[in-house]
């Protein structure tokens, strides 16, 4: 495992994603092409909490999947060239609430050609709140499916 980069926030900026659709704030540890640990704080003022759900704000599960996908992208040598191509086995095990800091860990599980699969989970205070696998299409090969 490589030591944490000097500026974990700057490292997260290697993704093309920007607010309001950036779901990694900082990269805590990365072993390029193998494993990453990253974090995202879900701030109480985020717009989606107003509707999901009124009076009971929780982070939509799809955003935790996006968090896993963006973290996986950041584990790649060229984060800007990775695109989400497939999601498998996503499970949401506990609600994530305003102010929670999600730590996402993704591990490279398999690859073939430009396709790379990462598996991992999201934790809040050590407890697993979501898990799943994402497949990224890396490089500038085939066009994405959508």
């Amino acid at each position, binding site marked *: 495992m490589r030591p944490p980069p000097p500026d974990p926030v700057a490292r997260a900026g290697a993704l093309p994603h920007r607010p309001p659709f950036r779901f990694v704030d900082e990269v805590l540890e990365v072993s390029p092409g193998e494993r990453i640990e990253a974090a995202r704080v879900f701030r109480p003022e985020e717009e989606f909490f107003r509707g999901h759900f009124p009076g009971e704000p929780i982070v939509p599960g799809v955003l935790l999947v996006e968090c896993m996908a963006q973290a996986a992208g950041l584990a790649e040598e060229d984060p800007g060239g990775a695109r989400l*191509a*497939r999601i498998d086995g996503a499970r949401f095990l506990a609600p994530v609430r305003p102010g929670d800091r999600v730590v996402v860990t993704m591990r490279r599980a*398999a690859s*073939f*050609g430009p*396709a*790379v699969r990462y598996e991992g989970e999201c934790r809040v205070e050590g407890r697993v709140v979501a898990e799943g696998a994402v*497949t990224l299409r890396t490089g500038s090969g*085939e066009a994405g499916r959508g």
Partner: protein
Amino acid sequence: MAPDLESRVRGTIVQSLRLKKGPEEIEGDAPLFGGSLGLDSIDALELVLAVEREYGVRIQDDAVGREALASVRALVAFLGPRIGKDETPPA
């Protein structure tokens, strides 16, 4: 080549890639990827994983995979001598 392995392989392909056609509708020598089936590299990775899961045979790298997954018959030929043999070194 044993016909039962070929039909098993056809089933693996159709199920793991969720193809909307019957196992016997895939031409034995037609290219699986980049051809008329409309399959791409994301599907190829899926098939690599399915082969490992269902037959216990690991496709070590892209070059081996390109050959093994070229067609139904190529995959049958690849698997035939390897099934049941623990010849794959640990990752």
